[in-house]
């Protein structure tokens, strides 16, 4: 498929403008270089993006159990709210009293999200989860710095953590200390105790953790970190499992980021705008970024202006639609769906941890691969032929040949039954015709792109020939 730049024809355009009826005005300075924007008529543009659409699998195309990503269906009403002209026809430099409605969106969203997370203050500047982590860990750094406590150079991260956690800690200038997981996938308390000390700045943790298990020792874990003088950071990646049921603030966490684009149902997955709202307890509020829009004087920015505003509008619309009863019910159903699907798949593929899970579960295909030669990658690719988006593969790293499924609450029992049936069929196929699965997918527009070449020699920029 051609890039839109390659479809460009000089002079072609989509706008039909009437003749100019005002005097022409020469700009004092003009750009010397050509802009090189693509020139196309409207139907070419429309067809180009429709074609792109047809080459991918979105949450509107079918089941999308991409573990850890919470690919729930995004309700249309959220889009309607975000398209209201009062929210779209604003300027980032508009005076505060001209955008009162937008401020109210932030205030209301902050109020609800503080209630859900058990925090006291919130910023919406960070553009996504990892950016939120970065902001949250900077709060921890600033806290220690403000106290003159310069010896705290280490952030503790469990080995099951998302890769962004150690990356965030390193970006903030901390040394990363990995602690091993216990056999049940939870934090090993003895390993944690051994890692804690006067150099501990904090701990980053997801709960429920990456294997979909709620760490039963969470109060003990946060107590130990606090006793050592560190702070506790909650990675909200898995908040969809517990929202409205248990609050990170009550588990002992001091700050948190929430992926609004995951848990609160705004579109994501294509690199589009997200929002990594960061919340904190009272004693950290003074270090929060403050946007010019929200606070006037003395703003500190981690991103231009006020963050990805329309994502917050969507999240607020979602919260208002679900309400106080609906938010915990969504989590309940997310957990129910994950357990239902896990039970249905059991008997063919093997869960890595055979116990009640939270909102997601991990299959361990290492024995299956030994038996059949068919890898987790082959199974993932075969699922594409069956109209399903593959689960997350080879993550978490503590499980070999991992497939990680998160069905989310927005899938019906019928969808889950169908998915389980597809897994059962593929399990059988692997024993009868593994070669077919090695070559899968057979019916997709894009089969097995050369990931190695893409990683070694990425071409991320179009250059005019």
């Amino acid at each position, binding site marked *: 498929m051609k890039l839109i730049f390659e479809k460009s024809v000089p002079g072609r355009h989509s706008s039909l403008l009437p003749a100019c009826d005002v005097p022409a005005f020469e700009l004092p300075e003009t750009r010397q270089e050509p802009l090189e924007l693509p020139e196309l008529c409207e139907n070419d543009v429309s067809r180009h993006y429709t074609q792109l659409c047809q080459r991918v699998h979105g949450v509107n195309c079918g089941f999308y159990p991409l573990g850890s990503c919470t690919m729930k269906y995004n309700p249309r009403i959220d889009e309607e709210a975000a398209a209201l002209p009062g929210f779209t026809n604003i300027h980032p430099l508009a005076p505060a009293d001209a955008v009162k409605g937008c401020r109210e969106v932030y205030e209301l969203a902050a109020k609800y999200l503080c209630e859900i997370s058990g925090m006291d203050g919130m910023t919406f500047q960070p553009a996504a989860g990892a950016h939120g982590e970065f902001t949250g860990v900077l709060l921890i750094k600033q806290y220690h710095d403000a106290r003159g406590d310069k010896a705290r150079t280490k952030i503790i991260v469990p080995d099951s953590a998302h*890769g962004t956690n150690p990356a965030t800690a390193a970006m903030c200038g901390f040394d990363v200390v990995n602690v091993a997981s216990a056999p049940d996938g939870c934090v090993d308390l003895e390993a944690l105790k051994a890692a804690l000390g006067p150099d501990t700045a904090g701990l980053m943790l997801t709960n429920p953790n990456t294997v979909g298990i709620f760490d039963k020792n969470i109060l003990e874990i946060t107590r130990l970190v606090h006793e050592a003088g560190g702070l506790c950071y909650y990675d909200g990646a898995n908040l969809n499992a517990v929202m409205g049921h248990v609050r990170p603030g009550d588990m002992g966490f001091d700050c948190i980021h929430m992926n609004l684009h995951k848990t609160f149902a705004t579109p994501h997955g294509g690199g589009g705008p997200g929002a990594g709202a960061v919340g904190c307890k009272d004693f950290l509020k003074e270090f929060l970024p403050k946007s010019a829009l929200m606070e006037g004087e003395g703003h500190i920015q981690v991103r231009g202006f006020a963050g990805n505003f329309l994502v917050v509008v969507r999240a607020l619309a979602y919260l208002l639609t679900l309400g106080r009863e609906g938010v915990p019910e969504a989590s309940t159903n997310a957990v129910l769906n994950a357990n239902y699907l896990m039970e249905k798949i059991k008997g063919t593929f093997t869960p890595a941890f055979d116990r009640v899970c939270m909102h997601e579960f991990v299959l361990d295909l*290492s*024995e299956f691969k*030994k038996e059949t030669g068919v890898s987790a990658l082959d199974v993932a690719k075969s699922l594409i032929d069956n109209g399903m988006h593959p689960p997350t*593969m*080879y*993550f978490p*790293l503590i499980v*070999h040949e991992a497939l990680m499924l998160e069905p989310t609450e927005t899938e019906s029992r019928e969808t889950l039954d169908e998915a389980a049936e597809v897994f059962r069929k593929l399990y059988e196929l692997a024993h009868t015709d593994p070669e077919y699965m090695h070559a899968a997918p057979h019916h997709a527009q894009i089969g097995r792109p050369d*990931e*190695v070449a893409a*990683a*070694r020699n990425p071409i991320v920029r179009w250059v005019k020939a």
Partner: protein
Amino acid sequence: MTINPDMKYTKSHEWVKEEDGTAVVGITDFAQDALGDVVFINLPEAGDEVVAGESFGDVESVKAVSDLVSPVSGIVQAVNEELIDAPEMLNSDPYGAWIIKVEQVNDREELMDADDYEAFCAEEG
């Protein structure tokens, strides 16, 4: 999977070969097979200190980024710069593609010989 009888091994799948007071370190065939195609490597610099059991760099494959754990403590004498442009050598020739050479070795991880390592890998699957 191949195991080189002349080398010692760590539980994190690095090999080490000590000759004339210098320890040569790389990753095993088992490691490269589990990682898949390696696309990047982060290396220390000559003169850096490495500590047994601690990370001295990392390798990134299309699956994941993994720490390289040093089997010995000492000072980096040389790094294999060729790997920066051709990390795929770790896949094609894991026992030939050394990563670092360490001098002034003063401590070692618990190391396995080839037979023990073979049994260890069989267990890990």
